[in-house]
């Protein structure tokens, strides 16, 4: 038994460069005022900004050079996503990247060559994994019939309203398959969600009666593993983003604690605020350690046990600390924290969304217990 196990942690030149660029880009292009401007728009993001990001090559970071990507793998996306989380920048990058990974990891070469290049160019994709709200559910409720017609629906499909393609998991005669659907096939089938995190958009999709083109069905042995991998990658990317948001939330708290006075003293001098803020710092730093540890272990192959452990720890830690940070941010801002105007609301809302996405902290700890203790 080796419970602590693998503790590799490396950071490549490419990651460093991407981090520098992404931090600067997000800081310049996505100040909080710009984030707020998007809260009540239909799409939740600025299309021009998204095209700029694609222009920087971010959509292709994790995709092979053969389809126009940079071939750096999902690990290289982590610093970019963390920077986006820090700026609370709403974009379809994570969903597009994960949908692309599903295709890359299980599609035929023909599918890969056809479907991925547009995504590198700024196309938007998303993935539909959840039949209900249970990330721990086995089995797939969405059915693909022998006639290639779907029966069932999916919930909480991120960026569904703007996606050019939706990759959905389904069951065909008991086997897991993926189906790729074009936006026009889904017209009128989306029921937009109202999310607690107003920087995000999602929708439930009713697929019943949709006919899937044969070329858009991905089947075979690799599908199940790809689904597993991509759920773990999703957990990691959401964790990375949440870590960035937690750091930004911490900054917001610290700034207030250094300037607000009560009873004649700066409130940051009170240990009742100071010490929990230190807990946020150390919890956020732990999340970051797990995130970059996991990024270190990701490769092009299927994720091994160490990588799985790392991704789950990253998500468990990041979910927990962002929940705590968001909650404390509201509390520590006092009356101001109770207003919509205060940025604390952005983080507490993001925290609630993050908690659920790709499984909450308890979900991952339960899986970790099986991995580590059995």
């Amino acid at each position: 038994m080796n419970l602590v196990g693998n503790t590799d942690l490396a950071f490549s030149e490419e990651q460093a460069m991407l981090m520098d660029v992404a931090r600067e880009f997000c800081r310049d292009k996505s100040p909080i005022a710009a984030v707020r401007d998007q809260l009540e728009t239909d799409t939740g993001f600025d299309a021009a900004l998204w095209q700029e990001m694609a222009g920087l090559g971010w959509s292709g970071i994790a995709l092979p050079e053969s389809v126009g990507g940079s071939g750096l793998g999902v690990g290289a996306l982590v610093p970019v996503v963390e920077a986006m989380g820090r700026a609370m920048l709403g974009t379809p990058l994570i969903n597009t990247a994960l949908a692309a990974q599903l295709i890359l990891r299980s599609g035929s070469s023909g599918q890969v060559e056809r479907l991925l290049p547009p995504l590198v160019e700024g196309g938007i994709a998303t993935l539909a994994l959840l039949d209900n709200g249970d990330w721990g559910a086995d089995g797939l409720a969405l059915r693909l019939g022998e006639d290639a017609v779907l029966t069932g629906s999916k919930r909480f499909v991120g960026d569904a309203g703007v996606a050019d393609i939706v990759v959905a998991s389904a069951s065909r005669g008991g086997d897991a398959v993926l189906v790729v659907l074009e936006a026009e096939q889904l017209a009128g089938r989306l029921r937009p969600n109202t999310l607690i995190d107003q920087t995000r958009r999602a929708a439930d999709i009713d697929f019943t009666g949709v006919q899937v083109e044969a070329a858009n069905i991905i089947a075979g042995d690799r599908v199940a593993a790809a689904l597993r991998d991509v759920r773990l990658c999703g957990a990691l990317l959401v964790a990375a983003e949440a870590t960035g948001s937690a750091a930004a939330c911490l900054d917001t708290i610290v700034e207030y604690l250094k300037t607000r006075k009560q009873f004649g003293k700066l409130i940051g001098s009170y240990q009742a605020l100071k010490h929990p803020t230190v807990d946020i710092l150390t919890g956020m730093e732990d999340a970051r350690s797990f995130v970059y540890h996991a990024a270190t272990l990701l490769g092009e192959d299927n994720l091994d046990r160490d990588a799985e452990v790392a991704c789950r720890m990253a998500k468990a830690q990041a979910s927990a600390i962002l929940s705590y940070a968001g909650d404390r941010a509201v509390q520590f801002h006092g009356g101001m924290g109770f207003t919509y105007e205060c940025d604390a609301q952005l983080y507490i809302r993001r925290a609630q969304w993050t908690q659920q996405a790709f499984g909450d902290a308890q979900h991952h700890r339960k899986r970790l217990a099986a991995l580590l203790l059995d």
Partner: protein
Amino acid sequence: MSATEAELAEFRSDVSAWMADNKPADPGFLLPQTFMEVGDERQLEFLREWQHKVWSAGYLGMAWPKEYGGGGVEPVFQNIADQEMRRHDVPICFNVIGLGWAGPLINDIGTEQEKSKYLKGILSAEDIWCQGFSEPEHGSDLGNAQTRAVRDGDEYVLNGQKIWTTMGNFAKYMILLARTNPEAQRKYDGLSFFLSPMDVPGVETRPIRKITGEYGFTETFFTDARIPADCLMGEEGQGWSIAMQTLQYERGAEAGAAGGLAMVRVTVEDMVEGLEGVERDGAPVLEDPLVRDQLVQAIMDEKALVLSVRRTGIAHLTSDYPGALPLSNKLRASELTRRMRQLAINLQGGEGALYVGDDTARQGGFWQRAYFNSFSATIGGGTSQIQANIVAEHVLGLPK
């Protein structure tokens, strides 16, 4: 002459029947759980009508004098009426500052004229009252209020700003804490207390959008606003002591409050029932051992609060740290509420990411909104951090 058990039982049965018959149908929009959540006219009118109906039926202000619209009976009747309202889960009697703060105060120390002028309107919900204690720069530090009230002939001239004025945009009157003497040696001695009209020139309110996205509070600005000098309650310099007295009435009819259901009580049981159909790992979430452990802890916290109220009256069981139970109650109840509601969201799985406005949100997004609203109690009326100081210093005698 005290009411007999039989009279009380009969009364209870009457109220119960009335509530069952008159409980309003679901209006199709989320109703406020507390008076701090009245965000729009639609909610306001609905609640105004309900309170008026309860009062007309004789179930509000029962212990207040008959001549001012009350029922003139013992407080025990009001307590029973309140219990039945709670049990029947009817809407709140929303004019809380009037019913629970201003009204009892006027009853206690008001002049004949004040009683005649104000009390009935409070009960009937015709006159909505708000409270002007907090100021932007002194959130938790009431004694430091800076809004000025300067006597000018038979008027006071008000200048300054209040914040967190619940229903400030709907209210006709405000109980106002303002500074009449900035030179007083103790800052507390410079304060005076006013029953101040809101509809005079120079008083403006600006709604505050809450973290929930909704409204419920205002900022209130006073710019050379002139109010009659007889709006002063008591004498100049008594403001702090009257304000502190005001805070005592919250404890219900026995303490002089008019009664009525002031907030929708939300329990762990509501949470558990609300989790019906939620699955975790393909099984009902209530079968998950970790969830069960969390729920048991929440139930214990809730039960402990109820028990601590029961225990408060037993001298032998409260002699070690007198004040421990009442003084920690706000801290504990508000923090429990916050924790429990956060938990309720987490237990929903994917649905926890939905919000009010999504038709498929569990109970219309009730818990998400409730979590956000719960901060009004952990922040308002002295933050939890300050409450903990108060318990430490006043109960345990720890140094400031």
